[in-house]
């Protein structure tokens, strides 16, 4: 391999480069194998969940945690998962758009970079720490707010609070807030990326027509960034759907369906339900839990797929 470069005359296509070719084909083989491994891993995730989850199709009674069949068991959990994640996105979207604008357009450039670091710090905190914080600090702190909401805005179904009113802060609303905090950095980062890429010539066109800063942003930044923001929100949604520990620790869930966000009884989520019950599960109950994991996988895969697809169509980097 190396000796061909020293004292031998250069040869173009003979056997002397056989070692080179062998080295190259081994190396490229390894590289493709690694690529294939990733494909197989993803396929494996789906395959093994199907193998282990399939028996749950016939589960009922004991193995479906006392429910008639698997659908009746999983549906309320899926509902809770979607509710918590959507709630988080409702909170995150305006916050992330505002934050991204602070970094991209409002703060002086150098300050903006540091503010971006601060937001990234939020992403570095492990989810179990958010769970601890949400359970011990945030939930009790929010209880007065829930009491106030149920007293004053109780006629809105979201803030009904149930018959006895809110008795603890570990509600789906609190879970949504914690999820929002956790999803905020990624959504902000993607929004910031697209906002910064807004062509200067369009911004200047708006300013030269006598637009104020906000009008300039509305005329040029938002139309340009629309698909980027949508994909950012979808990716954040995917993140929130699959988040386990924070919800498992914060939420006091009971597999029910309700739109009351602050009541004593709350829907649980798939991921949290698995985490809470897996340790004590055995036999067919494990299949049931894995099946619910499969449902979560499919839903979050779909959301991420659509998010990435929109992002790649709009040439946006995530």
């Amino acid at each position: 391999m190396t000796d061909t470069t020293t004292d031998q005359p250069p040869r173009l296509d003979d056997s002397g480069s056989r070692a080179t070719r062998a080295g190259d084909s081994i190396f490229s083989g390894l590289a493709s194998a690694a690529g294939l491994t990733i494909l197989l891993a993803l396929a494996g995730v789906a395959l093994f969940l199907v193998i282990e989850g399939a028996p749950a199709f016939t589960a009922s009674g004991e193995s479906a945690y006392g429910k008639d069949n698997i659908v009746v068991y999983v549906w309320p959990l899926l509902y809770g998962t979607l509710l918590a994640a959507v709630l988080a996105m409702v909170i995150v979207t305006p916050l992330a758009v505002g934050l991204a604008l602070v970094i991209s357009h409002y703060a002086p450039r150098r300050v903006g970079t540091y503010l971006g670091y601060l937001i990234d710090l939020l992403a570095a905190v492990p989810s179990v720490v958010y769970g601890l914080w949400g359970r011990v600090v945030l939930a009790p702190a929010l209880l007065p707010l829930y009491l106030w909401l149920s007293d004053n805005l109780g006629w809105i179904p979201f803030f009904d609070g149930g018959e006895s009113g809110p008795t603890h802060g570990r509600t789906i609303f609190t879970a949504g807030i914690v999820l929002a905090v956790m999803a905020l950095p990624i959504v902000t980062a993607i929004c910031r990326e697209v906002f910064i890429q807004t062509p200067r010539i369009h911004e200047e066109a708006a300013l030269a027509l006598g637009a104020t800063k906000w009008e300039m942003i509305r005329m040029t930044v938002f139309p340009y960034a629309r698909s980027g923001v949508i994909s950012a929100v979808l990716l954040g949604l995917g993140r929130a759907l699959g988040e386990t520990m924070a919800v498992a620790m914060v939420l006091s869930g009971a597999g029910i369906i309700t739109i009351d966000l602050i009541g004593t009884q709350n829907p649980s989520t798939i991921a949290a339900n698995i985490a809470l019950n897996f340790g004590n599960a055995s036999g067919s109950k494990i299949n049931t839990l894995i099946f619910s994991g499969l449902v979560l996988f499919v839903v979050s895969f779909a959301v991420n797929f659509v998010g990435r697809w929109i992002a790649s169509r709009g040439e946006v980097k995530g």
Partner: protein
Amino acid sequence: MAKSIDVSDVNIYYGDFLAVEGVNMSIRARSVTAFIGPSGCGKSTFLRSLNRMHEVIPGARVEGKIVVDAQDLYAPGVDPVAVRRQIGMVFQRPNPFPTMSIYDNVLAGNRLNSKKMKKSEADDIVEKSLRGANLWTEVKDRLGKPGMGLSGGQQQRLCIARAIAVEPQVLLMDEPCSALDPISTSAIEDLIHELKSEYTIVIVTHNMQQAARVSDETGFFNLKATGEPGHLVEFNPTAKMFANPDNAATEAYISGRFG
């Protein structure tokens, strides 16, 4: 409605860097004034200071007086947004708003000022502005189509229509033809001729023939040396400038010996 512009002792900075130094000139109303000079001499920077667009770059600032209609643009209490509303600008590269139709592009400036506009009123403004920009006959059947679908020259005329739709006093043009082919360029030059009956026009160009063709007066900007600030070398009627300039450097530049 056009106004004259009086510039005295203007220095322009990017942060601590002095980009243009000590400019004095008087730009006449209802005429075309051209700025020429080698690249990097600050002619575009100076143009952008005339409608306070220079300061949108972080750290950029302007010293001195630029007086329009007896008001100093840089006096305290002057609103840059109002200045830009009165002094329109056309950029080097055509920049219609990509998500808006031709119709909406023309009205973009007007919509900022009056939220509710009668449909007939809006139609009138669009037609008048597009006619003013010599674009009406070409686009009148596809006003709802996106502005990005037009050719480069048409896009630039759309940008001119957008700028004159708000009826400014002055129209600034920053190398408006540099991205265009010769036919589109000549269409824009014809348009500049027509517009000067109503507007004060200031145009930056790197093309001396263009300056000679369209302008009444010409300012020549140059650098004293590399790294030094740009300054105004000579400001004279275009005819005199091209036939018999006062300054040797102007002579050298115009006859093509540098730049």
